[in-house]
């Protein structure tokens, strides 16, 4: 499967609209839509624009939130006129678009997941009739079926074998949206629940549309549920070493590799978390978007080598 077809090659500039769509979210927010559809190129542009705006340190900008294929900027109109903000965004957008060999200094982080766990299974059973497309079977069975895969196990393999990019952090505190670094025709796509659940276990690994996510806290949710992550990703108490600096683990641009664990290992990790000794395996990595787009499989191989060489 190492060979690369011509179809895999996508030039990022070609898939994005020439300029972003700027639209106001009231008198305190500017919404910058890079593209209507999700793509690695759109996400990378959003991140790059966010980084540029942040380093420009424009007085009056309050929050800069890159998301999957767009960017939301909060500003204080008493300090920064809307027109001035819009011109600044246009200026930085042009610079981001003309960037040669765009790259980001990020990291690869390994997330242990207990797939087909009893916690999400229990919640699935409670929210079936009226909530789910398939009253019989599990969310994984359904996900396998709509992706034309034989078994839930096959779907699980597809889910953890190739890495994912954190394309947005939000919804609730510290929740990562994850976009898999594979060609579009290999993306896993699963509809959300017909109606959102009022309950989702904390650390559920979910999936809706083309995005996976990890629910940082217990609560409402509409994504299909595949398993639970073994260690926290949001820790307001900041007791674990990985949270010493900040209570949120993920940043947009992080690369995530899921690693399946069984119940025994899940319990062992939980014990390490309780003892305050657990640390995520993570390594620094410079992510080059053109290389990732031109030969995803070869590039993912390099990502995994970097992670395991650590």
């Amino acid at each position, binding site marked *: 499967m190492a060979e690369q077809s011509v179809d895999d090659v996508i030039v990022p500039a070609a898939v994005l609209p020439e300029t972003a769509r700027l639209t106001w979210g009231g008198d305190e*927010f500017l919404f910058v839509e890079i593209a209507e559809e999700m793509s690695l190129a759109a996400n990378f542009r959003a991140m790059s624009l966010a980084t540029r705006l942040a380093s420009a340190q424009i007085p009056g900008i309050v929050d800069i939130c890159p998301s999957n294929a767009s960017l939301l900027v909060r500003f204080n109109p008493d300090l920064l006129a809307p027109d001035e903000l819009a011109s600044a965004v246009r200026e930085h957008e042009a610079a981001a678009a003309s960037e040669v060999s765009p790259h980001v200094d990020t990291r690869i982080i390994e997330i242990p997941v207990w797939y087909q766990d009893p916690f999400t299974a229990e919640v699935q059973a409670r929210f079936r009739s009226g909530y789910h497309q398939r009253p019989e079977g599990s969310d994984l069975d359904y996900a396998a079926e709509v992706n034309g895969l034989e078994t839930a196990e096959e779907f699980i393999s597809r889910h953890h074998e190739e890495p994912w990019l954190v394309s947005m952090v939000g919804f609730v505190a510290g929740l990562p949206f994850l976009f898999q670094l594979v060609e579009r025709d290999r993306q896993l796509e699963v509809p959300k629940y017909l109606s959102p659940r009022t309950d989702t276990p904390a650390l559920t690994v979910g999936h809706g549309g083309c995005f996976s996510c990890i629910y940082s806290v217990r609560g409402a949710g509409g994504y299909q549920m595949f398993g639970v992550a073994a260690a926290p990703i949001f820790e307001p108490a900041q007791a674990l070493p990985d949270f010493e600096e900040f209570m949120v683990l993920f940043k947009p641009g992080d690369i995530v590799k899921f690693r399946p664990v069984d119940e025994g290992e899940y319990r062992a990790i939980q014990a390490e978390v309780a003892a305050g000794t657990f640390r995520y395996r993570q390594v620094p990595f410079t992510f080059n978007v053109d290389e990732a787009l031109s030969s995803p499989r070869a590039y993912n191989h390099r990502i995994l080598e970097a992670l395991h060489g650590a």
Partner: protein
Amino acid sequence: MALEIITPGLSTTVQDRGRSGYYNVGIPQCGSMDRYSSEIANALVGNDSGPGTGAAVLECSYVGPTFRVDAVTSIAVAGAPVEVKVNGEPRPQWARLELKPGDEVSFGVIKGGTKFCVAVRGGIDVPMVLGSRSTYVLGAFGGFQGRKLAAGDVLPIGVANGPLPHAAQLPENHIPRFTGPRELRVIMGLYAHRLTERGRALFLESEWTLTPVADRMGLRYDGPGVEWVERKQPFGAGSDPSNIVDAGYAVGSIQIPGGTQPIVLHRDAVSGGGYAMVGTVISADMDLLARSAPGTKTRFTEVTMDTALEARRTEARRLREAIASLG
């Protein structure tokens, strides 16, 4: 100096002006929902109204708490109309109340709106988390132990940092309205172009009714529904025409999942998601949402950015004048 909670009320939390700078990791701004009322309550007890997070107050929803103080202090209650009692005796709202050690404060039933706040001289002195004392219940941090208050909680009170104003009572003409219909001014945009012409007209020309699904996260309205333009959905967006590729949500933005009930997001809202927003309530009108009780008849009126900025200045001037009236 401390304040002891005897009964917590329905949902009482510690709030200040809120938290900024962390929206990019999904941490909402939080802070008092009815900002004007909380600024007035703080001003009445001489809490500094300069820039920054401001003093933290107790924000009470529908049913207020009962609490006791252990020292001489001043409090003020502002917001939704409610009977205020000190040791069972009625006392005025929008006024500074002097308390002695052991005094017990309780509340009657609100007669409009949903929320009132209690400011204490010196402010509620819980630890700052990420630059604010506001409670983020979903994330379980900020405020008092990251949660709504419970019986037996003892809240530390800070040191007074400003002089008491001359007047002890806010003049009647500065008290806002907590009942009756609402007009919310909106800047249309975001994904408004995804509405059909009829859908847009339905949104802007219909009367909507606030449902009981209304809290610090958002407020859901009932009405005729809207219509979306049918299309082939872009890759990564959901299958419903009201779905978009998950994006950041502006505070005050209005989404209409499935095209049925508009939801206006407020200060504790989710920071992003996959529902198309059609516009945003202007900053000057965000307090009006906090003052709307379920059943409130509401209209959304389109305004321009210039009108929104003018309204923002008017609102700021109104607050300055109210505080100045206290002397």
